[in-house]
């Protein structure tokens, strides 16, 4: 089993959960540790309950894991919710002045901090947080210097006095733990690596910049807003035109307008905003103007649970906008992949002149992961496809479009795309069905032969897209007892569940789907043909991917594991469900989320 260490920090919104989280994350990543952070929060500015999990270790940490080693409850409510879930070896650091512990399991260490004795709480309202960080790091066997550096960076903007005060408080907590609390059995190691800590939203925004996006617009919507924030903060530096627009209808149309004029354009939203964009996606398809839309899924339907994760928008994407048209849908497998998938998607949509949709979710968008920047590739290949931006070597007379036909019928279905303003390439781009030269065949000139030819031309691009994306591959041992099938963000947690199952004597392998449309259905069936027991794992109620796979390939798995309570899977949810299903007790497991967040 991978050696990891997880910290849970709980409190009300506004109590300062984020700052200790940032400090721990910084210290871990600088020790060369991998980390994964997930914040379970609520749609409230002040109050409620927020629970941040940071899990670190020397090997890749792909998910929040199953247990908390160190609990830091910042209020009584957090203590009440989480203490009972701690197991042997874990510890809980809390403010003894204001919080009373409840019953604990065997081998759980309670670490009360006499906060008012250790710090001047009239001066520093978040002294308990800083004391707890100090105490916790001491118990993990991390030098105080690391904390001092992190605090100095954190507070340097507020001036020397604030830095000194916080370092002093942290020191008091650190020293108090040294004399009163038992250190953790596993001191956190150190490696030579240095990682950056990215959220999926930052990764997708940077992926866009690396892909050469010149236009980004959005309407703020959780959990996609982080992409807009990064874009707005780096617009000048990265040379990107960034606009906040009145609504998602405006967003998608503005992005298409910019894309039509010739730049790479991107926008991000969540399910509700995506619903408003579907009309525009049809326009992108009909005009053959490439655009990339990111959907950071949250729990629906409707306003749903804005701060909770789900993989519930697949069928909305499959059916977005009416009529048949080629589209590309892909789902990133982790936060690093959030970066890489964007340039890949742009190359595809530029080549095939169609809309591309990235199906992310809150878990990746707002989660954080240590990533080695070297693995990302800041200068991915930019393939703009058959794009005409100058009149060089093309029709001589600017007065007519000469031989240029914007929607020329070709074998590949791809017609060279001239941007507006190129002499000799004047054309009409229309949402109405049109002829090869762009002239509308929707009103006076409807024509069954031409309509059929244009439909077939556009749809022929699907074959090309299929050939351009790789089929999925099976990870893990070939002849496994169980094959777990997932898509997108469940990649990491399924991987860890497979490892745990193997340790328990059940060999397991994994098939994770990244490219959803087009789907390599035949390749998937071929891979699964020899599988002994297959289970599809997904974060929604109806098994959206299972239904899609069945419709595309007639493949029916042996069982299903689904979760739709707003929280992501933890490895044990999958492990236990697999064991339950292998005994033949059920074919559908819906694990309960034990943590009340």
């Amino acid at each position, binding site marked *: 089993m991978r050696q990891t260490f997880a910290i849970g920090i709980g409190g009300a919104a506004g109590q300062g959960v984020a700052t200790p989280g940032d400090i721990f994350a910084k210290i871990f990543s600088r020790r060369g540790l991998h980390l994964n952070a997930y914040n379970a929060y609520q749609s409230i500015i002040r109050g409620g309950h927020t629970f941040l999990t940071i899990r670190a270790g020397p090997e890749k940490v792909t998910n929040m894991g199953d247990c908390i080693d160190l609990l830091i409850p910042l209020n009584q409510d957090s203590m009440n919710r989480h203490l009972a879930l701690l197991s042997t070896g874990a510890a809980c650091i809390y403010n003894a002045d204001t919080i009373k512990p409840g019953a604990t399991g065997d081998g759980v260490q309670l670490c009360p901090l006499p906060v008012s004795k250790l710090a001047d709480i009239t001066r520093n309202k978040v002294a308990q947080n800083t004391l707890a960080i100090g105490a916790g790091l001491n118990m993990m066997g991390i030098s105080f210097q690391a904390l001092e550096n992190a605090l100095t960076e954190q507070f340097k903007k507020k001036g020397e006095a604030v830095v000194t005060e916080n370092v002093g408080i942290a020191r008091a907590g650190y020293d108090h733990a040294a004399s009163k609390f038992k250190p953790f059995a596993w001191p956190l190691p150190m490696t030579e690596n240095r990682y950056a800590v990215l959220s999926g939203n930052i990764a997708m925004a940077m992926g866009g910049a*690396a892909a050469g996006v010149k236009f980004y617009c959005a309407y703020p919507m959780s959990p996609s807003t982080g992409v807009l924030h990064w874009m707005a903060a780096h617009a000048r530096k990265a040379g990107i035109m960034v*606009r906040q627009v009145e609504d998602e209808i405006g967003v998608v149309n*503005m992005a298409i307008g910019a894309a*039509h004029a010739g730049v790479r354009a991107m926008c991000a939203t969540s399910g509700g905003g995506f619903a408003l964009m579907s009309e525009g996606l049809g326009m992108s398809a009909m005009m053959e103007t490439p655009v990339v839309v990111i959907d950071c899924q949250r729990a629906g339907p409707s306003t749903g649970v804005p701060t909770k994760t789900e993989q519930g928008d697949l069928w909305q994407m499959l059916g977005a906008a009416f009529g048949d048209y080629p589209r590309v849908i892909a789902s990133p497998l982790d936060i690093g992949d959030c970066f890489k998938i964007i340039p890949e998607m742009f190359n595809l949509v530029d080549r095939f002149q169609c809309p591309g949709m990235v199906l992310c979710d809150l878990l990746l968008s707002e989660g954080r992961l240590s990533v080695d920047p070297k693995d990302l590739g800041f200068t991915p290949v930019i393939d703009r496809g058959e794009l005409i931006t100058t009149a060089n070597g093309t029709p001589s007379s600017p007065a007519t479009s000469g031989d240029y036909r914007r929607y020329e019928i070709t074998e590949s279905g791809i017609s060279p795309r001239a941007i507006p303003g190129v002499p000799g390439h004047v054309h009409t781009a229309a949402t109405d069905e049109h002829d090869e030269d762009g002239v509308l065949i929707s009103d006076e000139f409807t024509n069954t032969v031409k309509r059929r030819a244009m439909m077939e031309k556009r749809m022929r691009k699907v074959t090309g897209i299929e050939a351009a994306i790789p089929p999925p591959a099976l990870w893990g041992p070939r002849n496994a007892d169980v094959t777990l099938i997932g898509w997108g963000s469940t990649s990491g947690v399924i991987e860890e569940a497979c490892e745990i199952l193997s340790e328990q004597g059940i060999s397991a392998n994994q098939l994770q789907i990244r490219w959803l449309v087009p789907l390599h259905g035949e390749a998937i069936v071929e891979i699964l043909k020899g599988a002994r027991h297959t289970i599809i794992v997904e974060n929604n109620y109806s098994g959206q991917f299972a239904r899609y796979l069945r419709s595309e390939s007639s493949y029916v798995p042996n069982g299903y594991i689904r979760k739709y309570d707003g929280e992501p899977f933890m490895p044990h949810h999958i492990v236990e469900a697999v064991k339950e299903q292998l005994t033949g007790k059920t074919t559908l497991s819906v694990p309960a989320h034990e943590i009340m967040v």
Partner: protein
Amino acid sequence: MATTPTSTPVPKTNRIGLSIAEYKGGKTTLCAGCGHNAISERIIDAMYEMGVSPERVIKPSGIGCSSKAPAYFMSRSHSFNAVHGRMPSVATGAMLANRNLIALGVSGDGDTASIGIGQFVHLMRRNLPIIYIIEDNGVYGLTKGQFSATADLGSKLKTGVINDLPPIDTCVLAIQLGATFVGRSFSGDKRQLHSMLKAAVAHNGTVMLDIVSPCVTFNDHEGSTKSYKYMKDHEEPLQDINFVPVFEEINVEYDPGTTVEVTMHDGSRLRLRKLEEDYDATDKILAVKRLAEGHAKGEVLTGVFYVNTQAPNFIEMLNMTDNPLTTLPESVVRPGREVLEQVMEELR
């Protein structure tokens, strides 16, 4: 056999050497007598006379009879038929990506004031360089004559249905929200519309023109307030409009007592001879007030209601690069490795 030299008459050309034929469009498929066709003719004349390079013009439009019109003028310009009511954002995106384009947007009263009102009001706020024309007939033609949101209270459909809601005055909205050249005209008022369109070409910022354009099939009867007859009886021009482009010599003096002269961004002069003594088209508050009074009196005011040649347009305001984004070479199209590395360093 002796050959007789034949001289083909050299067609008249404009200042960029193009003949008027090169500003024409396809044959109209709209009804004979449709006001929209007259507007297309005026656009052709104005663009020809102003010597606008057709290749630089994009003609974004929405959906409806009005939005089909761009096919019937300027075939050498680029058309973009968007979806219903969404032309404002499409045009904004295109203009931000390529600031060298000249946007001539054509919409209708349904496309603008009903399904597209959300987009319209936000476009007006931006002062994007665009000429936004509403071909306004008060009804939906393509779906066979239902009322639109600019139809007047109490006006009557052919079927006898009476409109029970007040109209949206797109000019009032445009003035209040930030458009910098706002006027109303009538497709049948050839002279006024012609001058207004030429001035529109010279303006730097959003030009919003609501052009009443009767629908001969569904809204040209007794009881309609958007019919040819009604307009002829009720049109109240605020000014006599005269436009002198920058490239033409001024050979007629004007009387400052009766005429307001507005110098446009490019140096052209817009001369508004007051038909109403106190009207001043540079006074925003007065413009809104006068339009409200007109509604109360049942007048159809036309003319340039408001003009502001000083406000920066959207692209100037955003402080964008001089080179259009769309023509940036691949070497600068994305931030350099060092920029991304620096950003990444902040995340360590």
